[in-house]
């Protein structure tokens, strides 16, 4: 009980305080550079047309944009640290490409690229926050750490990442299906297109993989 009183008085608005103290300020909204829209669109088209090098040039552009979108989100919604992968990818997509010039295949390809990148970004972010907590949380007193899984909360991304790696070893396609569906928000049809398999296959993979992962994470 005495320990619980140690933090008294200094915490009028702890959530804001904490988020304010965290994260290096990057470019603010007004100062942001315009994303290389045309470039990305062209690269996608070139890649679809068979230009393998186009993909390599595409990746860093997409990655940067995804990170920017993610960090921007974190800064503006600090109290619950919402990171919704689908929303982030969509936002990046809208910023990066010329919608009118995108074919359905191009769009699917773009999201397929995003899936792996998004996964990476989320895992990195989660790791970073974790170490920040361990290091800098001295003022706060833990009462019931993490007692509040809420309806909205998703899985622990770091654990999910590890489980996906394990699944990839056993069945690479299933791991990829989850990546596309969860991290890029592709529909079953889009996933089927991206992977060149039938929608039935995707449905079955998806059904089994998420049950398997769920169980894996529940262990």
């Amino acid at each position, binding site marked *: *009980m005495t320990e*619980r*009183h140690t*933090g*008294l008085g200094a*915490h*009028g*608005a*702890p*959530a804001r305080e*904490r988020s304010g103290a965290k994260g290096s300020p990057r470019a603010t909204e007004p100062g942001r550079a315009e994303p290389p829209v045309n470039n990305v669109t062209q690269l996608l088209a070139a890649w679809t047309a068979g230009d393998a090098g186009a993909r390599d040039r595409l990746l860093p552009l997409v990655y940067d944009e995804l990170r920017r979108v993610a960090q921007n989100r974190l800064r503006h919604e600090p*109290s*619950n*640290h*919402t*990171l*919704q*992968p*689908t*929303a982030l990818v969509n936002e990046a997509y809208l910023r990066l490409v010329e919608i009118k010039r995108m074919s359905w295949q191009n769009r699917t390809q773009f999201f397929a690229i995003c899936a792996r990148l998004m996964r990476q970004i989320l895992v990195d972010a989660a790791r970073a*926050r974790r170490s920040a907590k361990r290091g800098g949380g001295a003022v*706060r*007193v*833990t*009462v*019931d*750490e*993490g*007692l*509040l*899984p*809420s*309806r*909205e*909360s*998703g*899985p*622990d*991304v770091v*654990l*999910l990442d590890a489980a996906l790696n394990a699944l990839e*070893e*056993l*069945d690479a396609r299933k791991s990829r299906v*989850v990546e596309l*569906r*969860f991290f890029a*928000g592709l529909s079953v049809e889009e996933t089927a297109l991206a992977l060149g398999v039938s929608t039935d296959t995707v449905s*079955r993979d998806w*059904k*089994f993989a*998420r*049950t*398997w*992962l*769920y*169980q894996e*994470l*529940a*262990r």
Partner: protein
Amino acid sequence: MNADARRERLRRVEALYHAAAGLSAAERAAYLADACGSDVQLRHEVEALLSVAPDAERFLEPGLEVVEQPPRIMTGWLVGHHVGPYVVKAVLAAGGMGEVYRATDTRLGRDVAMKVLPLAFSADAERVGRFEQEARAAAGLNHPNILAVFDVGTHEGASYLVSELLDGETLRDILDRGPLPVRAAIDYAIQIAHGLAAAHDKGIVHRDVKPENVFVTTDGRVKILDFGVAKLSEGSLLPAESAPATRLASTTPGALIGTIGYMSPEQVRGQPVDRRSDIFGFGAVLYELVAGRRAFERQTSADTLSAILHDEPPPAASDTPAAARALQVAHRCLEKSPHARFQSARDLALVLSDDLADADAGTRVAARRRRIVIGAVLSVICAALIVWLAGRVAAPSGSTRIRSIAVLPLENLSRGPDDDYVAAGVTEALITDLAKIRALRVVSRTSVLRYTRTEKPLRQIGKELDVDAVVEGSIERVGNRVRISAKLIRASTDEHLWAQSYDRDVRDVLMLQEEVARSIVKEVRVTLTPDEAARLAAHAREVDPDAYQLYVRGRYFWDRRTEDSVKRSIDYFNRAIQKDPAYAAAYSGLADCYLSLGFSFDVGSLPPNEAIPKAKAAALKALALDDSLAEAHNSLAYAKLNYDWDWSGAEDSFRRSLELNPGYAQAHHWYSHLLLATGRVDDSLAEARRALDLDQLSPIMNVHLGWNYLFARQYDLALSQLAKTIEFDPNYGLAYWYRGLVYEQQARYDDALRDLRKGAELLKGNVVVAADIGHLHAVSGNRREADRVIAELRQMSTRRFISSFEIALIHAGLGHADSAFDALEQAYRERSDLLVYLNVDPRLDPIRSDRRFDDLVRRVGIPR
């Protein structure tokens, strides 16, 4: 296992998983057992996946947000603050849902408890809005078993709730110390149920009923905590004092809601919950209180969740009847389907209170009188069926026509053994009601009884009973609610023609009944006579539920027709009457019992002049109470026939009974006795066949037709009918008895003796069969044995009643006409029922030409 083997393994697991996923639980187990063979590990893997599959359904759904956990709370930050009129004194408890402080209300000078939400929640306008709304709702819940909420507000951005300050501990603390006395456990449960009932009345669902949320004050009063607050968080209900087993790690994936182990299956699945979800939580608490362990406890949370979805709580030892009953109640609350549970907390409280009272009194004591109107519900169903049938019966198309129907025994969904009788009784009443429609042949109760909980396909049942349609359904009685579900199915095609469920409070049923009665009269006139329609509408009457149960038991024991069973039956009917002195049907049952005891044809253990006046008085009383009761007219008719020898009066009463209920097999059966006795043999056989047609599986109706053939001297038909009866029920004594009599008439004396002895053995204590064996000895030339039987009977008659008619028969068989007539005169004075068959009993042939015989027939008044 190398990587390839592991990949192969996963493929195998996946294949089995997909194959099993589409199967029902039962099929699944069988399939996996078969497919996995001895590979238990494989089977476990697949089963584990299948068990979490429902939970994984929303897992990783694209578009779901990834939300970090809310920031931790700083404990005790409010101590020393002035919050409105309150001065915060100290921290009482702290947890993820907030902190609880002791504070003083400066206006009233009383100490209160103040619960403060985490700031992260307080910043969320929607959450706070709901919090306040729910907290106000809880504040409106002025109930001694619910924590009283005084106030809500915000302070420096933090929402708080002020409630009464209690001295005591949670039920969890109490349970952790060890088992409770059953009485205390049930007492706590009753209080919880009362609190929940009050909340449910206001439309508030707690959604997190568990020992941690039940507070017991030092003076033993139960208070339910966390109302409203529970609802606020939409199920993320982890409270201040979560016990380790209920705690979820933040890393647990998926949307786990509520407290593991007390969540209802629908909560586990993330489906909408209503108050029946609280009933489940209550059941889990009750189970734990009485059994001393959790209803669902497994090694991991995933296993626990799976257990909630799929497993029954383990049976628990119960030292006392009260504990056993409380566990029954708990099991009922823990049904997987919300529909199968108790539907209201109030009923729960009543049921448990009753049990506690029973435990105290040692016998069943009616704590209160609730009058329910089962008849009214029945009328509703009958009306619906009749309205449906009216169209069909009238329909010109032959193929859709329903001319015959069987009402299968309603399944009793209530767990109490008493309710089995109710289900049986309601089935019978339903049959009785429908049987009143002349255009319909309704198979009677005894014939459908064998289909209780049957697995047979309806098509087969339809064929066996030779009916066009089948009614099946279920009944549940909980406190003052009755729910009956019924459906009408065409037997030949399995086509569901009509289905309806009635779940009514007593008051609603009354209102509904009037409404439906009117619509019956309106709708059914096409095919029913106005009289029939009116009678149906008038059928509903108030019945005390306890009296009703006693009545149904009485009928059950009467059917068995042994001396002991009929005496038990009398006791039940008397108790029913004691409960409900205006219960006409119970008087009619009583009448039938005395008829059985007084007539040698039946049990014959009492002198007619002792038993039958009682029977008549009861029948008349029944008719005074309800002149439209077919059963009572039938009882009276049988007494008039066999005792009063009032032939025209009996005929009138039989006709009245059959007019009131043309489907009453018992009335056809007894009426055929009158027709036979008066020599109208063909009519008699027709009535006996009609009775059998209505009640094909009843041994009594079967054996009666055989007896009828015997007295009609159609011995081959008699033999084949009795053989059928024996085939149907090899232990039915009456059938062997009567077959013995048939063999005797055919002079197959060895067969006769074998069957009579078998009959006597099965009908232990029936002296009439013993006398008939004496008659067989007489006619088969074994005169010494016959004399011995006579001597035995005479000696026995000093101890118990033996009809002199039986002794007369033996003398007649021996050719002793004078002795026979002496005995017949004695039988006349006894008013023996068997005298009405003077003209048809083949065994009297040797003395039939004597003028004394004609004189006797004249005095008995048998019409020519």
